[in-house]
């Protein structure tokens, strides 16, 4: 743009590009990363729903019935469906990434990532089954 030479005291001016606020839209892998981070919003949402349920149970049968009724409304069904998808995404990304953070060594060699991931999913199924058992029997 300018025709004058750009020199600072000891060397030519370096070019530094500012990182755009929209950096995360530049690449699909960045966008997927932001989606993964946004799952935390839905995690918080459901934690609050459970807190609400706890409050309703503490208040009594009337409040609990109102809670149940509210969850049946289209708004909450939609929110909960969306939340379920995001929470599932959180679970899958979380379980797939744990072997990176925790290296397990057995007898001198590293346990392959696939084994740890497999164990994670197995544990997930077992734990989910146990919770479902308790809640459905109630």
């Amino acid at each position, binding site marked *: *743009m*300018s*025709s004058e*030479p*750009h*020199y600072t005291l000891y*060397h*030519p*001016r*370096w*070019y*530094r*590009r500012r*990182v755009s606020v929209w*950096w*995360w839209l*530049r*690449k699909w*892998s*960045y966008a997927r*990363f932001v989606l993964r*981070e946004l799952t935390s919003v839905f995690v918080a949402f459901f934690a609050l729903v459970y807190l609400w349920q706890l409050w309703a149970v503490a208040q009594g049968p009337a409040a609990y019935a109102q809670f149940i009724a509210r969850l049946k409304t289209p708004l909450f069904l939609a929110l909960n469906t969306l939340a379920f998808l995001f929470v599932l995404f959180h679970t899958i990304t979380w379980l797939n*990434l744990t072997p*990176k*953070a*925790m*290296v397990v*060594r057995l007898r*001198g*060699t*590293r346990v392959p990532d696939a084994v740890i991931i497999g164990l994670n999913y197995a544990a997930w199924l077992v734990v989910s089954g146990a919770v479902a058992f308790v809640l459905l029997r109630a």
Partner: protein
Amino acid sequence: MMASTSTLDLTVARYRPERESEPSFQTYEIPFRKDWVVLDALNYIKDRLDGSLSYRWSCRMGVCGSCGMKVNGTPKLTCATFLADYMPGPVRVEPLDYFPVVRDLVVDLTDFVRKLKRVKPWILREEEKPPGEGEYLQTPEQLDIYKQFSMCINCMLCYSACPIYGLEPGFIGPAAVALAQRYNMDSRDQGAAERLKILSEHDGLWQCTFVGECTKVCPKHVDPAGAIQQYKLTAATHWVKSLLLPWGAR
């Protein structure tokens, strides 16, 4: 008569501070050879088309780490990136992101080198063994623990892929942590505590949010993202221990 050889367009970023204040692009038509890499194309440009093009390269076989650039937006070693994978082109070649551009495809490495030095990437010992006592012995299992992290060639592709490094200039970065881990986990090293202090500083590694791009672009499969996450766990465990046992921790 000549068989027509196919050609390929290379769109190369140019920045000549003596006459422009912003980078621009220049397109060159080069002959396509199926065994050529991007570095060959750049050398062709420099030799035959435009001698003013500036870029770094050295070993041309993926071990020196000099030729890192962005090819079609992804950080790559240009000596290891085949033109054939980008046919019919055009191929866009730019300098690495998040480093100041000195000229054309050349970036300034000072920040990375400074951060690398900060983590003391060498064997730290309280007392050196006198040479007469022989070498430090290490079993294959002990080598295996840190070997992956020792593969780093300091090519800086990981820094260029890391959005956090772009946003937080103080972030110490993937390669520095991977190399710190390489020494922390080396059985001959005794400097883990010293490096822990350095890395636990606010701008050390806690800025990392495990985007994982660094591991994706690493040409030597070092897995710096894994190194950082492992180190977070180590640092956090150490923090808990120092909280519970303040007298015995160090």
